[in-house]
């Protein structure tokens, strides 16, 4: 694949048209700078995006985000929607972590008043946010309590003092998918996850303290409580052992059916 095969839509948007390969059902839309794209072309992520575009039942385009890199059949950073009844569920698209998420936490802490305390902040975050694969969180739940977490999601967190109504309203699906059924999850997956509530995880999970340098949409920033010169915190976590364990069972089923 070459950049010349892509159609440039804007400075940060590109498209792989369906003419690139006969079996593509939809185009691929990429979000990246030219500089990023030149790095991305070095691995197989664009080929994987094209492969994804051949899946049955796709709705709209396959979308790939700026963090795209080679994944498990589907590029990491890739997004696609498929529709019942002709669309497929793609384990490769989901990957090995389910329900990982990223949140941006605004603050009313101005950087200029906090910059002497940044090292202390980093030390405290490291101390109070358990990180590392398998590392336990501060809570010790029974399997019954974990079922409540799995079923109620962020509502469980709110009931137990770890979240507010405002947090839920700013979370996809208010932090809970309708019809969630913890009975469908293996005991093994639950065992892996029950000590990990409130832990960060490892790999590409992170907590990052940022300073807002520039606002591109003042109205949107104000609505979200984000202010220039103030601290924000980005958090990427989720899935953990329960998610990884839950993912494995459908892959085993799909692989055996595919043979």
């Amino acid at each position: 694949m070459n950049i010349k095969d892509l159609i440039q839509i804007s400075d940060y948007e590109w498209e792989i048209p369906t003419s690139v390969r006969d079996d593509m059902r939809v185009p691929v839309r990429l979000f990246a700078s030219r500089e990023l794209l030149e790095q991305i072309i070095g691995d197989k992520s664009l080929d994987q995006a094209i492969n994804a575009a051949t899946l049955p039942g796709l709705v709209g385009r396959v979308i790939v985000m700026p963090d795209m890199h080679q994944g498990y059949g589907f590029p990491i950073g890739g997004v696609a929607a498929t529709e019942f009844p002709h669309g497929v569920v793609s384990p490769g698209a989901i990957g090995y972590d389910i329900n990982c998420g990223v949140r941006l936490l605004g603050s009313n802490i101005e950087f200029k008043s906090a910059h002497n305390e940044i090292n202390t902040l980093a030390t405290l975050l490291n101390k109070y946010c358990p990180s590392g694969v398998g590392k336990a969180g501060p809570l010790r739940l029974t399997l019954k309590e974990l079922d409540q977490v799995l079923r109620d999601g962020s509502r469980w967190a709110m009931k137990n003092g770890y979240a507010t109504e405002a947090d839920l309203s700013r979370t996809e699906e208010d932090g809970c998918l309708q019809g969630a059924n913890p009975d469908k999850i293996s005991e093994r997956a639950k065992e892996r996850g029950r000590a990990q509530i409130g832990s960060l995880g490892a790999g590409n999970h992170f907590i990052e303290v940022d300073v807002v340098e520039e606002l591109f949409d003042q109205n949107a920033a104000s609505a979200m409580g984000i202010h220039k010169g103030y601290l924000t915190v980005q958090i990427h976590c989720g899935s953990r052992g329960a998610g990884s364990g839950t993912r494995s069972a459908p892959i085993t089923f799909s692989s055996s059916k595919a043979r």
Partner: protein
Amino acid sequence: MKVKGFEEIPHAADWAMRVWAGDLASLFAEAAQGINKLAGVKVVEGVKTKRLSQTEAPDYESLLVAFLSELIFLIEQENLAFSGFDIHFTKAVNGEYRITANLEGAPIQFIGKAIKAATYHNLKISKTDRGLEAEVVLDV
């Protein structure tokens, strides 16, 4: 040329290893050793523990993933790593392949970077001039 072994191979975002051995049981054992090595596992000396692991799967590739997943679970949940393997394969009543492994190991003293899962990505156990060979991608 080493009769059996493993080596790390490049991977964009996770870890991958190539494993080879003269027979299936040794291939599975080498894959397990590879996990310990890649994760930088160091065990407590002088303490030994034994476990019996048994699992079934529709094919040998799935069985390898299931076996490695069991070891990853034991590392994560019980802080135990295993380096001695007595492995046997049979057929289960439902026609699936079964692995029975007597594991010997010890509590973990230190682990450099733990592994989340063994994946099916591009996994194929093939016959080569080294016997049997497979490339295993590990989610980290």
